[in-house]
């Protein structure tokens, strides 16, 4: 691969946090009501949910736009209409909100309401990432880390790490999870990997807790088998399975990473 033609500089990334206009309070109340209905029984309350989202959308509630768009794609409460979802995501963009760009990026990637176009998808995701959207930062970070050509991958790795760090800094646990795998397999820096899994685990990231359990249970990546520590993570992993919103801000005290000893209760 001719790497001379690659514009490395344009790949550079500066971490930005997403900042959006505040919601109109009434619109947000409608939005939250709709979300509650949706979590209870999306099908039974479909009409109410759609109506509430539409009201919120009239007051420029951009999350309502995205949510209604998803209902159009799945055909819940409305006739399936992927084009309508695209139009709604464009309205989000018109409001200057980064998540609109990300959503369009996903639509272009998978051919939802638009002709699939992977290159265009990447451009939209990049724009969203630069505007601070954490999902876009995660998506691009993953793609850069996933490059097959070793020399290129190693060269762009700092950009990928920067994006993942930025996303995690905004609370996206999965970004730390991706970093953990990168450290575990690519650079073989086990200590960094464990720390990254731990950081995600604090936010209740189930798969990270499972990995910590598994690593200490089997003794992988050069880590000593540690059944007590493994059991600690397993307990928390089971807790997240039943309570999806659980977080463990005190994880470093409950299940500390080595060399810290396990607490005695």
């Amino acid at each position, binding site marked *: 691969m001719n790497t001379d033609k*690659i514009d490395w500089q344009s790949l550079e990334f500066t971490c930005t946090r997403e900042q959006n206009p505040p919601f109109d309070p009434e619109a947000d109340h409608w939005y939250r009501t709709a979300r509650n209905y949706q979590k209870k029984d999306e099908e039974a309350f479909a009409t109410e949910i759609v109506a509430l989202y539409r009201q919120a959308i009239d007051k420029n509630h951009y999350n309502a736009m995205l949510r209604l768009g998803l209902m159009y794609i799945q055909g819940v409460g409305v006739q399936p209409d992927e*084009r309508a979802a695209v139009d709604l995501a464009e309205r989000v963009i018109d409001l200057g909100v980064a998540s609109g760009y990300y959503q369009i990026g*996903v639509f272009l*990637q998978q051919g939802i309401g638009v002709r699939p176009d992977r*290159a265009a998808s*990447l451009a939209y995701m990049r724009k969203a990432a630069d505007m601070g959207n954490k999902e876009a930062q995660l998506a691009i970070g993953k*793609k850069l880390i*996933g*490059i097959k050509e070793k020399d290129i991958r190693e060269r762009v790795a700092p950009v990928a790490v920067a994006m993942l760090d930025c996303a995690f800094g905004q609370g996206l646990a999965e970004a730390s999870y991706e970093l953990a795998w990168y450290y575990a397999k690519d650079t073989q820096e086990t200590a960094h990997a464990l720390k990254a899994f731990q950081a995600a685990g604090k936010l209740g990231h189930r798969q990270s807790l499972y990995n910590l359990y598994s690593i200490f249970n089997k003794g992988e990546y050069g880590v000593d088998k540690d059944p007590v520590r493994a059991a600690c993570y397993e307990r928390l992993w089971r807790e997240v399975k039943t309570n999806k919103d659980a977080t463990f801000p005190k994880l470093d005290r409950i299940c500390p990473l080595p060399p810290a000893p396990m607490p005695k209760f």
Partner: protein
Amino acid sequence: MALTDTTAHADIALNSQREVRLTMPWFAENSKYPPRPTNLIEPLVNGERAFAAVHEAIANARTSIDIISWGFDPSMRLIRPGGERLGDLLRRKADKFARNDGTFLEPSVPVRILIWKNAIANMGENNIIGDGLIGSGGGTALGSGVGGLESAGGGAATDDGFNAYGDNHLNSAAVRALDDEARAFNRAWFRYQPLDMEFRTRDFSFYDRAAIADQQRAQSGMAGASRTGALAAFASHHQKVILIDYESPDDAIGFVMGHNLLRNYWDTDSHEYQSTVRDGFAPWQDLSCRVRGPVLFDLNENFMTAWDRADTGRNKMSWSEARRARRAEDFIAPAQRRGGATLAQICRTQPQENDKGILAAYRLALANARNYVYFENQYFRYRQFAELLRTTRRRLKAAGWRRDFHIFVVTNTPDDHGRVNTYDMLAALGQGQMMPAMHKNASGQRDPDSALRTADLEGVNIHVCTLLASGRGGQYKNIYVHSKLLLVDDVFFTLGSANINTRSMETDSELNIAAPAPALTRQWREHLWRIHTGAAPGEDMETEFDRWERMIKANASDRKLGAALAAPLVEFFDNEDAWLAPD
């Protein structure tokens, strides 16, 4: 697609007992054949096992051998290395003057072989090796022996979702260009047939095709005009069934198969990257089963009808009185004696009889799912199932079901799956560029048979995977998944010839066996998940889901780094992202 309504009313008399056991209904009502009791079903995972069982059954046959398949290669060997060629085995059984080891004449066994053939489709893919176009002698319609090393019956679908068995010129089932001996064998085999063997091909008549086209059009919002035409034009007979010694219930055996009788279908569980015993063909994952019991009656009905329908006017053989006299009940005791205890149903897609029993069985099974669903299928392209799964899950959640259900899929990736090369990707990722134009689709529904996207499966816990064999030095090869299996909840399974696409569910002829059989379902899952994930699976699906995730992630890294994979499981949607679903 709506959930099948499973509301039922039953009167229970409590004067003689106080306990009643209720089960979910697993047998679809609008299916030609009824459920049958006391069957014995034995899973046969991969060609080495399946073909060895078939070979044994044929070799020991005494009263009849009946074969339906989509493809047929008499030069192939069922047992390897060094086994007898299938054509020789069949001819020896049908030969009136064949001798056994002790030089006694063995009575000949009537052999009937019924294979799908469509002259037009044959232009591209020769599924009958050695049989020329409309009996002209040898090779494909394009000339004898034309075709490369590509496998038969395994073409990846084009991106618009149309899995054309016959329209890919490069996808020929012809014998290896170097194997002159096999080619000559096949030509000779088709030219000479013993008196007690008859070979017929079957197809859909013009009338049949028109009827299929009408059915497709009548379904609102389904395939568009060109798709309807293509489905009708290339409707194929996809069933794969073998029936041995039907006249003699004590000995009768059947096979309901995913395997075709083609040489590239042979492989072992280990799916080696390189394998001489596979004749150089790619690794192949496929499933069949052996059956005894009253389902044989239905397998026979299907066979006799199909055979008679393919009548060429020059009948060599007729049905014996013994065969006509058989009833389903005759097969109960012989199966029971061998431990048969499974209630099972033969279900089909049979457009000529307006039978969509397989679709009905799938719909019912998916609506019943509470714990997990496992699809191992060559194609995973029937969008209605994605909707059905989402609906099932939604209903469960709304009804307060605490546990989530999990879906596991093992299938094939389409060819390049929309990959952008690294250079183009980096170019597109530059900052500060103008947003490129996008081409919006018109309003309205999408094509139901196109490839599923991550988006279609959003909201359900699902792993969609494919299988990869590792060679030395960072080399990888797809293990082609040809299986057609559904498992639900360690309770129900269905196996056979039906793919998850419109063709198999609606317009081709297909045959599956379906059974609510916890032990068997468990057996399938334990075997298959062990070979795919490298470790014996547990019972808790949430644990299994996370274990799969870990294996997939580790394999993705290993593949990128050029290391050997710990197990064949890799992710299908590895370059697709989740859409934003705000809190």
